Protein backbone atom coordinates (compact mmCIF):
# COMPACT_ATOMS: atom_id res chain seq x y z
CA UNK A 1 0.00 0.00 0.00
CA UNK A 2 1.31 3.39 -0.97
CA UNK A 3 -0.22 6.85 -0.84
CA UNK A 4 0.20 8.89 -3.98
CA UNK A 5 -1.49 11.94 -5.41
CA UNK A 6 -3.03 12.42 -8.82
CA UNK A 7 -4.35 15.41 -10.75
CA UNK A 8 -7.92 14.47 -11.47
CA UNK A 9 -10.17 17.43 -12.18
CA UNK A 10 -10.16 21.09 -13.04
CA UNK A 11 -6.41 21.71 -13.34
CA UNK A 12 -5.82 25.34 -14.37
CA UNK A 13 -2.22 24.67 -15.52
CA UNK A 14 -0.95 27.22 -13.02
CA UNK A 15 2.02 24.95 -12.27
CA UNK A 16 2.50 25.81 -8.60
CA UNK A 17 2.31 22.11 -7.64
CA UNK A 18 5.29 21.35 -9.89
CA UNK A 19 7.18 24.21 -8.29
CA UNK A 20 6.37 23.06 -4.76
CA UNK A 21 7.10 19.36 -5.36
CA UNK A 22 10.39 18.54 -3.68
CA UNK A 23 11.08 15.36 -5.66
CA UNK A 24 10.35 16.54 -9.19
CA UNK A 25 7.43 14.18 -9.64
CA UNK A 26 5.19 16.74 -11.35
CA UNK A 27 5.35 17.98 -14.91
CA UNK A 28 3.05 20.47 -16.59
CA UNK A 29 2.17 20.44 -20.25
CA UNK A 30 -0.54 22.02 -22.35
CA UNK A 31 -3.10 19.60 -20.92
CA UNK A 32 -2.28 20.39 -17.31
CA UNK A 33 -0.20 18.95 -14.47
CA UNK A 34 0.75 15.27 -14.25
CA UNK A 35 2.13 13.45 -11.23
CA UNK A 36 4.44 10.48 -11.81
CA UNK A 37 3.16 7.86 -9.32
CA UNK A 38 6.58 6.18 -9.30
CA UNK A 39 8.32 9.36 -8.20
CA UNK A 40 5.56 10.61 -5.85
CA UNK A 41 6.49 10.11 -2.19
CA UNK A 42 2.98 10.89 -0.97
CA UNK A 43 4.05 13.95 1.03
CA UNK A 44 0.84 15.80 0.08
CA UNK A 45 2.59 19.10 -0.59
CA UNK A 46 0.87 19.46 -3.99
CA UNK A 47 -2.50 18.63 -2.47
CA UNK A 48 -2.10 21.27 0.22
CA UNK A 49 -0.97 23.90 -2.25
CA UNK A 50 -3.46 23.36 -5.05
CA UNK A 51 -5.82 26.33 -4.86
CA UNK A 52 -8.19 24.63 -7.31
CA UNK A 53 -8.41 21.41 -5.32
CA UNK A 54 -7.65 19.57 -8.53
CA UNK A 55 -5.47 16.95 -6.83
CA UNK A 56 -6.75 13.78 -5.22
CA UNK A 57 -5.24 11.39 -2.72
CA UNK A 58 -5.02 7.77 -3.83
CA UNK A 59 -4.04 4.61 -2.07
CA UNK A 60 -2.45 2.18 -4.48
CA UNK A 61 -1.64 -1.42 -3.79
CA UNK A 62 1.27 -2.86 -5.79
CA UNK A 63 0.18 -5.75 -7.98
Amino acid at each position, binding site marked *: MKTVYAVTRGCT*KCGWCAHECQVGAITVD*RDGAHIDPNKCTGCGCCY*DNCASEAIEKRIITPA
Partner: protein
Amino acid sequence: MLEYRREEDGIVEPQRVLPVESEYDVIVAGGGIAGVGAAIAAARGGARTLVIEQTSGLGGLATMGLVNIPLDYRSGIGEEMIRELEAVDGHWHRNSDPEKHKLVLDRMVRGAGCDILFVTSVVDAVMRGNAICGVVIESKSGRQAILGKRVIDCSGDADAAYYAGCEYSVGRESDGYVQGCSLEFRLGGVDWDAYQNSECKANDPRWEALIEQGLQAGDLPYPIDNHLNWMTHVPGRPEHCGMDEVSICFAHSRHCKPLEVRDLTRMYLEGREQCDILWKFIRTYVPGFGKSWLIDTAPLLGVRDSRRVLGEYTLTGFDVARRAKFDDVITITWRGFDVHNPTGPGNQKWFETVIDGETRYITAGLDGYGSSSFPPGGPDALSDYLGRTGEELQDERQKTHYDVPYRCLVPQKVENLLVAGRCLSADFPGQSATRLVMCCNAMGEAAGHAMVLSLKHDIAPRKVDRIELQRRLIDAGCNLGQSERAIPGVTD
Protein backbone atom coordinates in the same frame (compact mmCIF):
# COMPACT_ATOMS: atom_id res chain seq x y z
CA MET B 1 -18.07 78.28 10.13
CA LEU B 2 -15.78 78.64 7.12
CA GLU B 3 -16.87 80.84 4.28
CA TYR B 4 -16.50 79.40 0.79
CA ARG B 5 -16.30 81.94 -2.02
CA ARG B 6 -17.75 81.11 -5.42
CA GLU B 7 -15.56 81.92 -8.39
CA GLU B 8 -15.79 81.36 -12.12
CA ASP B 9 -14.02 77.97 -12.15
CA GLY B 10 -15.05 76.63 -8.76
CA ILE B 11 -15.18 77.24 -5.04
CA VAL B 12 -12.29 78.85 -3.18
CA GLU B 13 -11.46 76.94 -0.06
CA PRO B 14 -10.67 79.29 2.81
CA GLN B 15 -7.34 79.04 4.58
CA ARG B 16 -7.56 77.12 7.82
CA VAL B 17 -5.33 75.54 10.41
CA LEU B 18 -5.41 71.76 10.41
CA PRO B 19 -5.13 70.19 13.84
CA VAL B 20 -2.16 67.81 14.10
CA GLU B 21 -3.87 64.69 15.34
CA SER B 22 -0.68 62.83 16.20
CA GLU B 23 2.98 62.29 15.31
CA TYR B 24 4.65 59.01 14.44
CA ASP B 25 7.95 57.60 13.26
CA VAL B 26 6.31 55.67 10.44
CA ILE B 27 2.92 56.25 8.82
CA VAL B 28 1.60 53.42 6.69
CA ALA B 29 -1.00 54.69 4.22
CA GLY B 30 -3.33 51.76 3.57
CA GLY B 31 -4.04 48.72 5.75
CA GLY B 32 -4.30 46.18 2.96
CA ILE B 33 -2.13 43.12 2.88
CA ALA B 34 0.99 45.18 1.99
CA GLY B 35 0.26 47.73 4.70
CA VAL B 36 -0.12 44.98 7.26
CA GLY B 37 3.38 43.68 6.40
CA ALA B 38 4.84 47.19 6.52
CA ALA B 39 3.14 48.13 9.79
CA ILE B 40 4.10 44.95 11.65
CA ALA B 41 7.72 45.08 10.47
CA ALA B 42 8.12 48.77 11.34
CA ALA B 43 6.45 48.48 14.74
CA ARG B 44 8.42 45.39 15.73
CA GLY B 45 11.57 47.25 14.75
CA GLY B 46 10.82 49.81 17.43
CA ALA B 47 9.29 52.53 15.25
CA ARG B 48 6.16 54.26 16.55
CA THR B 49 3.86 53.23 13.74
CA LEU B 50 0.36 54.14 12.56
CA VAL B 51 -1.57 52.39 9.82
CA ILE B 52 -4.38 54.37 8.16
CA GLU B 53 -7.10 52.35 6.47
CA GLN B 54 -10.07 53.59 4.43
CA THR B 55 -12.30 50.57 5.12
CA SER B 56 -13.30 49.08 8.46
CA GLY B 57 -10.86 46.17 8.52
CA LEU B 58 -7.31 45.15 7.69
CA GLY B 59 -6.26 42.96 4.78
CA GLY B 60 -7.65 44.92 1.83
CA LEU B 61 -8.62 42.75 -1.09
CA ALA B 62 -7.53 39.59 0.76
CA THR B 63 -10.33 40.14 3.29
CA MET B 64 -12.64 43.04 2.41
CA GLY B 65 -12.39 42.15 -1.28
CA LEU B 66 -13.13 38.44 -0.73
CA VAL B 67 -9.96 37.54 -2.64
CA ASN B 68 -9.30 35.04 0.11
CA ILE B 69 -6.56 33.23 -1.70
CA PRO B 70 -3.10 33.98 -0.30
CA LEU B 71 -1.04 32.68 -3.22
CA ASP B 72 2.73 32.66 -3.72
CA TYR B 73 5.62 32.04 -1.32
CA ARG B 74 5.02 31.73 2.41
CA SER B 75 7.75 33.71 4.09
CA GLY B 76 8.38 36.09 7.00
CA ILE B 77 5.26 37.81 8.32
CA GLY B 78 3.23 36.10 5.57
CA GLU B 79 4.28 32.69 6.86
CA GLU B 80 3.37 33.74 10.39
CA MET B 81 0.00 34.99 9.15
CA ILE B 82 -0.78 31.64 7.50
CA ARG B 83 0.24 29.80 10.69
CA GLU B 84 -2.09 32.03 12.72
CA LEU B 85 -4.88 31.32 10.24
CA GLU B 86 -4.23 27.60 10.44
CA ALA B 87 -4.39 27.78 14.23
CA VAL B 88 -8.01 29.00 13.96
CA ASP B 89 -8.92 26.59 11.16
CA GLY B 90 -8.88 29.48 8.71
CA HIS B 91 -6.62 28.16 5.94
CA TRP B 92 -6.52 25.22 3.55
CA HIS B 93 -5.51 24.66 -0.06
CA ARG B 94 -4.12 28.20 -0.19
CA ASN B 95 -7.61 29.48 0.55
CA SER B 96 -8.46 31.46 3.67
CA ASP B 97 -11.50 32.46 5.66
CA PRO B 98 -11.86 36.22 5.09
CA GLU B 99 -13.59 36.85 8.42
CA LYS B 100 -11.03 34.93 10.46
CA HIS B 101 -8.29 36.59 8.43
CA LYS B 102 -9.49 40.07 9.44
CA LEU B 103 -9.35 39.16 13.12
CA VAL B 104 -5.94 37.48 12.77
CA LEU B 105 -4.60 40.68 11.18
CA ASP B 106 -6.19 42.92 13.85
CA ARG B 107 -4.42 40.89 16.48
CA MET B 108 -1.08 40.71 14.68
CA VAL B 109 -0.95 44.45 13.97
CA ARG B 110 -2.07 45.47 17.45
CA GLY B 111 0.19 42.83 18.96
CA ALA B 112 3.15 44.45 17.22
CA GLY B 113 2.29 47.69 19.05
CA CYS B 114 1.04 49.48 15.96
CA ASP B 115 -1.79 52.02 16.11
CA ILE B 116 -4.66 51.79 13.62
CA LEU B 117 -7.08 54.35 12.18
CA PHE B 118 -10.02 52.80 10.35
CA VAL B 119 -12.54 54.52 8.06
CA THR B 120 -9.99 57.21 7.32
CA SER B 121 -8.82 58.44 3.92
CA VAL B 122 -5.43 59.93 3.09
CA VAL B 123 -6.29 63.04 1.04
CA ASP B 124 -3.01 64.94 0.83
CA ALA B 125 0.69 64.81 1.64
CA VAL B 126 2.47 67.24 3.96
CA MET B 127 5.81 68.11 2.39
CA ARG B 128 9.00 69.78 3.50
CA GLY B 129 10.80 70.51 0.25
CA ASN B 130 10.89 67.23 -1.64
CA ALA B 131 10.52 65.14 1.52
CA ILE B 132 7.20 63.88 2.80
CA CYS B 133 6.69 64.59 6.49
CA GLY B 134 3.06 63.72 7.05
CA VAL B 135 -0.37 63.18 5.55
CA VAL B 136 -3.70 64.95 5.63
CA ILE B 137 -6.57 62.66 6.57
CA GLU B 138 -10.34 62.91 6.46
CA SER B 139 -12.59 60.92 8.72
CA LYS B 140 -15.56 61.24 11.04
CA SER B 141 -13.28 63.55 13.07
CA GLY B 142 -13.00 65.91 10.12
CA ARG B 143 -9.88 67.00 8.30
CA GLN B 144 -6.67 66.58 10.28
CA ALA B 145 -2.93 66.23 9.78
CA ILE B 146 -0.71 63.43 11.03
CA LEU B 147 3.02 63.97 10.98
CA GLY B 148 5.48 61.18 10.35
CA LYS B 149 9.23 60.92 9.90
CA ARG B 150 8.69 58.30 7.21
CA VAL B 151 5.69 57.27 5.09
CA ILE B 152 5.08 53.92 3.42
CA ASP B 153 2.45 54.08 0.70
CA CYS B 154 0.54 50.80 0.67
CA SER B 155 -2.69 52.38 -0.53
CA GLY B 156 -2.81 50.35 -3.74
CA ASP B 157 -3.70 53.48 -5.70
CA ALA B 158 -0.48 55.19 -4.51
CA ASP B 159 -2.52 58.05 -3.06
CA ALA B 160 0.18 59.37 -0.71
CA ALA B 161 2.84 59.15 -3.42
CA TYR B 162 0.55 60.93 -5.85
CA TYR B 163 -0.13 63.80 -3.46
CA ALA B 164 3.59 63.97 -2.67
CA GLY B 165 4.30 64.61 -6.34
CA CYS B 166 5.74 61.28 -7.46
CA GLU B 167 5.68 60.43 -11.13
CA TYR B 168 3.55 57.45 -12.04
CA SER B 169 1.90 55.53 -14.86
CA VAL B 170 -1.60 54.14 -15.13
CA GLY B 171 -2.77 51.21 -17.21
CA ARG B 172 -1.66 49.45 -20.32
CA GLU B 173 1.11 51.16 -22.27
CA SER B 174 -0.91 51.06 -25.52
CA ASP B 175 -4.12 52.79 -24.37
CA GLY B 176 -3.93 53.56 -20.65
CA TYR B 177 -6.71 51.14 -19.69
CA VAL B 178 -6.26 49.21 -16.45
CA GLN B 179 -7.22 45.58 -15.97
CA GLY B 180 -10.86 44.63 -15.61
CA CYS B 181 -12.13 45.11 -12.05
CA SER B 182 -14.08 42.41 -10.19
CA LEU B 183 -16.64 42.47 -7.42
CA GLU B 184 -16.39 39.09 -5.71
CA PHE B 185 -19.24 37.28 -4.05
CA ARG B 186 -19.70 34.44 -1.59
CA LEU B 187 -22.13 31.57 -1.75
CA GLY B 188 -23.13 29.41 1.20
CA GLY B 189 -24.87 26.05 1.28
CA VAL B 190 -22.68 24.57 -1.44
CA ASP B 191 -22.26 20.81 -1.64
CA TRP B 192 -18.57 20.94 -2.46
CA ASP B 193 -18.12 17.18 -2.59
CA ALA B 194 -20.92 16.91 -5.15
CA TYR B 195 -19.23 19.59 -7.25
CA GLN B 196 -15.78 18.05 -6.90
CA ASN B 197 -17.02 14.68 -8.05
CA SER B 198 -19.17 16.02 -10.88
CA GLU B 199 -18.68 15.60 -14.60
CA CYS B 200 -18.65 19.36 -14.80
CA LYS B 201 -15.57 19.79 -12.61
CA ALA B 202 -13.77 17.03 -14.50
CA ASN B 203 -14.68 17.98 -18.05
CA ASP B 204 -15.86 21.58 -18.06
CA PRO B 205 -14.02 23.24 -15.17
CA ARG B 206 -14.46 26.67 -16.73
CA TRP B 207 -18.18 26.09 -17.23
CA GLU B 208 -17.88 27.00 -20.90
CA ALA B 209 -20.53 24.44 -21.93
CA LEU B 210 -22.75 25.52 -19.03
CA ILE B 211 -22.48 29.17 -19.99
CA GLU B 212 -23.48 28.25 -23.55
CA GLN B 213 -26.48 26.31 -22.21
CA GLY B 214 -27.44 29.26 -20.01
CA LEU B 215 -27.32 31.57 -23.00
CA GLN B 216 -29.42 29.26 -25.16
CA ALA B 217 -32.03 28.92 -22.41
CA GLY B 218 -32.15 32.67 -21.86
CA ASP B 219 -30.95 32.40 -18.26
CA LEU B 220 -27.91 34.52 -19.11
CA PRO B 221 -28.72 37.81 -20.80
CA TYR B 222 -25.35 38.04 -22.55
CA PRO B 223 -22.22 35.87 -22.87
CA ILE B 224 -20.62 36.48 -19.50
CA ASP B 225 -16.91 36.99 -19.47
CA ASN B 226 -15.28 33.67 -19.72
CA HIS B 227 -12.64 34.37 -17.12
CA LEU B 228 -11.48 31.25 -15.43
CA ASN B 229 -14.25 30.95 -12.87
CA TRP B 230 -11.90 31.10 -9.94
CA MET B 231 -13.50 29.70 -6.83
CA THR B 232 -12.14 29.86 -3.35
CA HIS B 233 -13.31 27.15 -1.00
CA VAL B 234 -13.55 28.87 2.36
CA PRO B 235 -12.01 26.69 5.07
CA GLY B 236 -13.26 25.92 8.52
CA ARG B 237 -16.78 24.90 7.60
CA PRO B 238 -17.71 21.35 8.56
CA GLU B 239 -16.30 19.14 5.82
CA HIS B 240 -18.38 16.75 3.75
CA CYS B 241 -21.69 17.98 5.11
CA GLY B 242 -22.89 19.65 1.93
CA MET B 243 -22.83 23.08 3.55
CA ASP B 244 -19.65 24.56 2.14
CA GLU B 245 -18.88 28.18 1.40
CA VAL B 246 -17.12 29.50 -1.69
CA SER B 247 -15.95 32.89 -2.92
CA ILE B 248 -16.28 33.41 -6.63
CA CYS B 249 -14.32 35.75 -8.89
CA PHE B 250 -16.60 35.96 -11.87
CA ALA B 251 -18.03 39.48 -12.27
CA HIS B 252 -16.00 41.93 -14.35
CA SER B 253 -16.23 45.57 -15.29
CA ARG B 254 -14.18 46.74 -18.29
CA HIS B 255 -12.87 50.09 -19.51
CA CYS B 256 -12.35 50.93 -15.86
CA LYS B 257 -11.19 54.20 -14.35
CA PRO B 258 -10.59 53.23 -10.73
CA LEU B 259 -9.22 56.67 -9.85
CA GLU B 260 -12.53 58.37 -10.64
CA VAL B 261 -15.28 58.11 -8.05
CA ARG B 262 -18.10 58.16 -10.64
CA ASP B 263 -16.60 55.18 -12.41
CA LEU B 264 -15.91 53.38 -9.13
CA THR B 265 -19.59 53.86 -8.31
CA ARG B 266 -20.53 52.52 -11.74
CA MET B 267 -18.42 49.43 -11.07
CA TYR B 268 -20.03 48.72 -7.68
CA LEU B 269 -23.51 49.07 -9.20
CA GLU B 270 -22.62 46.99 -12.25
CA GLY B 271 -20.78 44.45 -10.10
CA ARG B 272 -23.76 43.81 -7.84
CA GLU B 273 -26.08 43.44 -10.84
CA GLN B 274 -23.64 40.97 -12.42
CA CYS B 275 -23.31 39.02 -9.15
CA ASP B 276 -27.12 38.75 -8.99
CA ILE B 277 -27.25 37.28 -12.50
CA LEU B 278 -24.24 35.03 -11.94
CA TRP B 279 -25.16 33.45 -8.64
CA LYS B 280 -28.63 32.58 -9.87
CA PHE B 281 -27.09 31.04 -13.00
CA ILE B 282 -24.64 29.08 -10.85
CA ARG B 283 -27.39 27.84 -8.55
CA THR B 284 -29.41 26.61 -11.52
CA TYR B 285 -26.64 25.11 -13.64
CA VAL B 286 -23.61 24.06 -11.60
CA PRO B 287 -23.75 20.69 -9.82
CA GLY B 288 -23.55 20.98 -6.05
CA PHE B 289 -24.81 24.58 -6.02
CA GLY B 290 -28.55 23.81 -6.23
CA LYS B 291 -29.27 24.80 -2.63
CA SER B 292 -26.74 27.60 -2.38
CA TRP B 293 -27.52 31.17 -1.35
CA LEU B 294 -25.76 34.48 -1.75
CA ILE B 295 -24.00 35.43 1.48
CA ASP B 296 -22.59 38.76 0.34
CA THR B 297 -20.86 40.74 -2.35
CA ALA B 298 -17.50 42.20 -1.40
CA PRO B 299 -17.50 45.57 0.36
CA LEU B 300 -14.32 46.43 -1.55
CA LEU B 301 -14.08 46.33 -5.35
CA GLY B 302 -11.24 44.26 -6.78
CA VAL B 303 -9.13 46.90 -8.51
CA ARG B 304 -6.12 45.03 -9.88
CA ASP B 305 -3.99 47.98 -10.89
CA SER B 306 -4.08 51.74 -11.01
CA ARG B 307 -1.10 54.05 -10.32
CA ARG B 308 2.34 52.50 -10.63
CA VAL B 309 4.88 54.82 -9.05
CA LEU B 310 8.04 55.55 -11.04
CA GLY B 311 10.83 54.18 -8.88
CA GLU B 312 14.57 53.80 -9.12
CA TYR B 313 13.97 50.62 -11.09
CA THR B 314 10.92 49.60 -13.12
CA LEU B 315 10.23 45.88 -13.07
CA THR B 316 9.33 44.82 -16.60
CA GLY B 317 7.38 42.02 -18.22
CA PHE B 318 10.65 40.73 -19.58
CA ASP B 319 12.09 40.53 -16.04
CA VAL B 320 9.14 38.32 -15.14
CA ALA B 321 9.45 36.18 -18.28
CA ARG B 322 13.21 35.66 -17.93
CA ARG B 323 12.97 35.15 -14.14
CA ALA B 324 15.34 38.05 -13.43
CA LYS B 325 17.58 38.15 -10.36
CA PHE B 326 18.71 41.40 -8.76
CA ASP B 327 21.45 42.09 -6.21
CA ASP B 328 19.01 44.20 -4.18
CA VAL B 329 16.27 41.54 -4.02
CA ILE B 330 13.82 42.14 -1.16
CA THR B 331 11.34 39.40 -1.99
CA ILE B 332 10.80 36.74 -4.58
CA THR B 333 7.74 35.75 -6.49
CA TRP B 334 6.88 33.05 -8.93
CA ARG B 335 3.76 33.98 -10.82
CA GLY B 336 3.50 34.68 -14.53
CA PHE B 337 1.30 37.27 -16.20
CA ASP B 338 -2.31 37.58 -15.18
CA VAL B 339 -4.11 40.33 -17.05
CA HIS B 340 -7.87 40.51 -16.81
CA ASN B 341 -8.60 41.94 -20.24
CA PRO B 342 -8.96 45.73 -19.86
CA THR B 343 -11.30 46.22 -22.83
CA GLY B 344 -12.91 42.86 -23.61
CA PRO B 345 -13.69 39.44 -22.24
CA GLY B 346 -11.16 36.97 -20.96
CA ASN B 347 -7.89 36.58 -19.12
CA GLN B 348 -4.50 37.03 -20.73
CA LYS B 349 -1.42 35.30 -19.37
CA TRP B 350 0.78 37.05 -21.92
CA PHE B 351 1.68 40.55 -23.05
CA GLU B 352 2.13 42.15 -26.42
CA THR B 353 5.37 43.82 -27.39
CA VAL B 354 7.32 44.74 -30.49
CA ILE B 355 10.80 43.29 -31.02
CA ASP B 356 12.82 44.32 -34.07
CA GLY B 357 9.68 45.62 -35.72
CA GLU B 358 7.79 42.39 -35.17
CA THR B 359 4.82 42.04 -32.81
CA ARG B 360 5.33 39.31 -30.21
CA TYR B 361 3.13 37.82 -27.50
CA ILE B 362 5.28 36.89 -24.54
CA THR B 363 4.30 34.40 -21.85
CA ALA B 364 6.18 33.26 -18.77
CA GLY B 365 5.43 29.60 -19.42
CA LEU B 366 2.80 27.02 -20.10
CA ASP B 367 0.33 29.03 -18.06
CA GLY B 368 0.02 31.13 -21.24
CA TYR B 369 -2.04 28.30 -22.67
CA GLY B 370 -4.38 28.67 -19.68
CA SER B 371 -5.46 32.10 -20.96
CA SER B 372 -9.08 32.51 -21.92
CA SER B 373 -8.27 35.35 -24.32
CA PHE B 374 -5.55 34.72 -26.89
CA PRO B 375 -3.67 37.04 -29.25
CA PRO B 376 -4.31 36.96 -33.00
CA GLY B 377 -3.06 33.58 -34.15
CA GLY B 378 -4.29 31.82 -31.02
CA PRO B 379 -2.15 29.81 -28.57
CA ASP B 380 0.46 29.12 -31.23
CA ALA B 381 1.26 32.83 -31.40
CA LEU B 382 2.55 32.76 -27.82
CA SER B 383 6.30 32.76 -27.34
CA ASP B 384 8.71 32.79 -24.43
CA TYR B 385 11.08 35.70 -23.88
CA LEU B 386 13.55 34.29 -26.40
CA GLY B 387 10.92 34.00 -29.11
CA ARG B 388 10.53 30.22 -28.90
CA THR B 389 7.02 29.00 -29.75
CA GLY B 390 5.01 25.78 -29.83
CA GLU B 391 6.91 22.73 -28.66
CA GLU B 392 10.07 24.83 -28.33
CA LEU B 393 8.51 27.23 -25.82
CA GLN B 394 10.19 26.98 -22.44
CA ASP B 395 8.32 27.20 -19.16
CA GLU B 396 10.73 29.39 -17.23
CA ARG B 397 8.43 29.26 -14.20
CA GLN B 398 9.20 25.59 -13.72
CA LYS B 399 12.88 26.43 -13.34
CA THR B 400 13.00 29.31 -10.92
CA HIS B 401 11.41 32.37 -9.29
CA TYR B 402 12.21 36.01 -10.02
CA ASP B 403 13.18 38.86 -7.72
CA VAL B 404 11.52 42.11 -6.74
CA PRO B 405 14.36 44.59 -6.20
CA TYR B 406 14.38 47.18 -3.41
CA ARG B 407 14.62 49.94 -6.03
CA CYS B 408 11.03 49.15 -7.14
CA LEU B 409 9.86 50.44 -3.74
CA VAL B 410 11.91 53.67 -3.87
CA PRO B 411 10.23 56.56 -5.72
CA GLN B 412 12.55 58.59 -7.88
CA LYS B 413 11.67 62.06 -6.67
CA VAL B 414 10.32 62.14 -3.14
CA GLU B 415 12.37 61.49 0.02
CA ASN B 416 11.32 59.61 3.16
CA LEU B 417 8.74 57.68 1.16
CA LEU B 418 8.56 54.05 0.06
CA VAL B 419 5.78 52.31 -1.84
CA ALA B 420 4.76 48.66 -1.52
CA GLY B 421 2.08 46.41 -2.92
CA ARG B 422 0.34 46.74 -6.25
CA CYS B 423 1.56 50.35 -6.74
CA LEU B 424 5.21 49.25 -7.00
CA SER B 425 7.41 50.56 -9.78
CA ALA B 426 6.68 48.19 -12.66
CA ASP B 427 5.39 48.26 -16.19
CA PHE B 428 1.88 47.00 -16.94
CA PRO B 429 2.72 43.29 -17.48
CA GLY B 430 5.30 43.32 -14.67
CA GLN B 431 2.70 44.61 -12.23
CA SER B 432 0.17 42.01 -13.35
CA ALA B 433 2.52 39.27 -12.15
CA THR B 434 3.58 40.77 -8.82
CA ARG B 435 0.19 41.71 -7.39
CA LEU B 436 -0.57 38.48 -5.52
CA VAL B 437 -1.46 38.53 -1.83
CA MET B 438 1.75 37.04 -0.44
CA CYS B 439 4.06 39.03 -2.71
CA CYS B 440 2.38 42.31 -1.73
CA ASN B 441 2.65 41.34 1.93
CA ALA B 442 6.36 40.60 1.52
CA MET B 443 7.00 43.92 -0.26
CA GLY B 444 5.33 45.70 2.65
CA GLU B 445 7.41 43.80 5.16
CA ALA B 446 10.62 44.77 3.34
CA ALA B 447 9.54 48.43 3.27
CA GLY B 448 8.84 48.32 7.02
CA HIS B 449 12.30 46.95 7.76
CA ALA B 450 13.90 49.47 5.41
CA MET B 451 12.24 52.35 7.27
CA VAL B 452 13.52 51.01 10.60
CA LEU B 453 17.07 51.09 9.21
CA SER B 454 16.51 54.49 7.65
CA LEU B 455 15.44 55.88 11.04
CA LYS B 456 18.19 54.08 12.94
CA HIS B 457 20.94 55.56 10.75
CA ASP B 458 19.09 58.82 10.11
CA ILE B 459 19.41 58.43 6.35
CA ALA B 460 16.98 58.61 3.47
CA PRO B 461 15.28 55.31 2.63
CA ARG B 462 16.99 55.31 -0.78
CA LYS B 463 20.36 55.32 1.01
CA VAL B 464 19.60 52.24 3.09
CA ASP B 465 22.37 49.68 2.65
CA ARG B 466 20.80 46.81 0.74
CA ILE B 467 23.11 44.27 2.38
CA GLU B 468 22.09 45.35 5.89
CA LEU B 469 18.43 45.28 4.80
CA GLN B 470 18.73 41.84 3.23
CA ARG B 471 20.50 40.40 6.28
CA ARG B 472 17.74 41.81 8.45
CA LEU B 473 15.05 40.31 6.19
CA ILE B 474 16.69 36.89 6.17
CA ASP B 475 17.01 37.02 9.98
CA ALA B 476 13.28 37.76 10.12
CA GLY B 477 12.55 34.60 8.14
CA CYS B 478 12.02 36.17 4.73
CA ASN B 479 12.71 34.21 1.59
CA LEU B 480 14.97 36.16 -0.75
CA GLY B 481 15.79 33.07 -2.77
CA GLN B 482 18.98 32.63 -0.74
CA SER B 483 18.68 28.86 -0.80
CA GLU B 484 18.79 28.88 -4.58
CA ARG B 485 21.56 31.35 -5.25
CA ALA B 486 24.13 33.45 -3.41
CA ILE B 487 23.14 37.07 -2.81
CA PRO B 488 26.33 39.15 -3.26
CA GLY B 489 27.70 40.37 0.08
CA VAL B 490 24.98 38.59 2.03
CA THR B 491 25.16 34.86 1.58
CA ASP B 492 28.31 34.43 -0.51
